[in-house]
């Protein structure tokens, strides 16, 4: 009985990675919408984690996000990722306007054992994720207006021994001159812990 109860509450490493990826996907999409990086017409609402989240319908954005996230998931399972940076930069002069850092910490056992199991209830995790996603939406009220055409890019900080597929290349990390940082809530799946930090250009 006790073991059954245990397995019901358990979350596998794969499941945890999927949750993290879902969070990143919806987080990135709602940032794209909330910060007005792409026209609001190109978004549609979807129900996730008990929230209606605006997801981009632009095929090109999805064609970019899907392979990045699936590759990230593999790396996450191998515990190679340290953080994901979503860099929002001015299209014309490439100036970095805003950076969203999603930092990953690996909890539980240190080895990347695929059978490792967490013991947190799914509903609790989802609630935590929901809280962070809500917070992302509410950041619009204080983040400075992106008053220029902006594009975004995803930079993944990995360990040096990672295998790099062909479509990937190393880039220079980007930072914002004179930036302000704000740490949002974090959530944990008991296997992965996710910290979200937004850095933005401080007002002149």
């Amino acid at each position, binding site marked *: 009985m006790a073991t059954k109860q245990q397995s019901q509450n358990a979350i596998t490493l794969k499941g945890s990675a999927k949750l993290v990826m879902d969070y990143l996907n919806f987080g990135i999409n709602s940032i794209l919408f909330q910060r007005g990086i792409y026209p609001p017409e190109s978004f549609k609402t979807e129900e996730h984690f008990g929230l209606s989240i605006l997801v981009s319908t632009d095929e090109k954005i999805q064609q970019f996000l899907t392979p990045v996230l699936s590759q990230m998931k593999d790396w996450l399972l191998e515990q190679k990722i340290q953080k994901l940076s979503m860099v929002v930069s001015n299209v014309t002069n490439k100036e970095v306007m805003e950076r969203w850092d999603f*930092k990953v910490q690996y909890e539980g056992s240190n080895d990347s054992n695929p059978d490792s199991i967490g013991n947190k209830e799914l509903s609790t995790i989802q609630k935590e994720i929901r809280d962070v996603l809500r917070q992302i939406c509410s950041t619009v009220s204080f983040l400075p207006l992106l008053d220029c055409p902006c*594009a975004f890019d995803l930079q993944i900080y990995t360990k*040096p021994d990672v295998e790099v597929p062909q479509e990937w290349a190393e880039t220079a*990390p980007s930072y914002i001159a004179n930036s302000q940082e704000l740490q949002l809530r974090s959530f944990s799946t008991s296997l992965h812990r996710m910290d979200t930090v937004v850095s933005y250009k401080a007002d002149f």
Partner: protein
Amino acid sequence: MSQFAFVNDLKSAVRMDEPITNGPAPRWMKKSVESTSSSSNTSRNKISTSGSFSGHMKLSKETIDLMAAKRTPSKTPKKSKSPASRSASNTPAKPKTPGGDRFIPSRMSTNFDMSHFKMNQENENLDLSPTQADYRKAMSENLHGCDINNVRVLSYQNKAPAPPEGYQNALKVVYSQSKTPMNVRGNTRYIPHAPDRILDAPEIVDDYYLNLIDWSFSNILAVALGTSVYLWNADTGAIDQLLDLEGADYITSLSWIPNGHLLAVGTSLGPVQLWDVSQTKRLRIMNSHSSRVGAMSWNNHILTTGSRNGQLVHNDVRHREHIITIIQSHTQEVCGLKWSTDGRYLASGGNDNLLNVYSGLPGQTTYHSEPIYSFSQHQAAVKALDWCPWQTNVLASGGGTADRTIRFWNCNNGQCINSVNANSQVCAILWSKTYRELVSAHGFANNQLTIWKYPSLTKVAELTGHTNRILNLAMSPDGSTVLSAGADETLRMWKCFLPDPNKKKEKEKRSSRPTLLGPGLR
């Protein structure tokens, strides 16, 4: 010694009948020249090198060796040997004619010690002191949140697309919604801040792109409410229904002919009706458009109409074949259209954010289909348009929600004279006939009318009262009253341009009714 060599050379060069001596000098001669010049050169070189960066003995010796090497004569004798050899012996470091095709590096300018040091140093570069290494690590952690040396930063090479061309962050509106401060200077005249009169306008179509009210010179206000046109006589207060459309058709624009009783009525299906209001009689229907006609403007007998598909048509209402010119310069719905008071310019604004200005001449029969100016500075639909009554070439235009600026254009040279941020969508603009002022009507957030001084563009007054955005403005024929039609289904009259009481008497003298002999139809 060298002087002698030079003289000898000279002699041999001049005398042609002597045995050939102007080839390379004999070996013994060169030897003796070399030994003397090199001894003198050593000292000279020493001075020059010690004068520069390093006084190393080694370096100066090297250069001497080099110079010796340079002085060895080239195998092929040259014609101008004599002056060359002389100069070589005098300044051996810089031969004026460097030997043939050989590359001789100037070692004088190269600091070998320094280069050697630099080359070796590079290998030791990474051996930082522990504190320095710690400092770097700390800096990197501060900047990147992790030690950058243990991290690879990867990114997917097929980047996400940039936002579409011309896309403006729509959040701009969310960010700029504060009441702008008023002019601190007190105003010299009194402007009532409450409406003089409020009329109900049930079922007025809340559509930014339509022009639903117009006030005639004979003081009759025409209002389109849904499918009907009502006439409100401002003198008597009498209300008449002029027409009522059938079916799903509704009225999209109204325009009085200046100084006449003709009212043009634009409809959502396209036909434009022409009514003689004095007889309450429909004169004709003009089928110029296939989509709704949202904007109309008169220029004598020419009625210019703008439709949803961006087409402008000049109609001569006197002719059976009324279409004179079709202009296709807008790609989207035309929502603002205004002839200047002297008929020299026509301004049109569209949902494609363009403001076009066309030239015209009173009484002309053909019109250019190309605008003389096309201004793209507005970031949203241009609906609010009006020509300045005292400077006939000045046009005021206002943009929609994403733009929220009022711009002033000099149409003689096509320049933007001035612009002011209204912080709210500009739905209509009217110039005052009484004062050097203009009034603009706005939407979210305050739904106010703002009176601006021109050309200083300071705010004179803000008239609030509408609970929803203002759709249109109209001015009474005497210029004292501004009527605003709001989406809150009210028409409000503001006596904001009442003439100064001091000047009133003067005014009354002149305010005899305009004669009906003005340019009529025929």
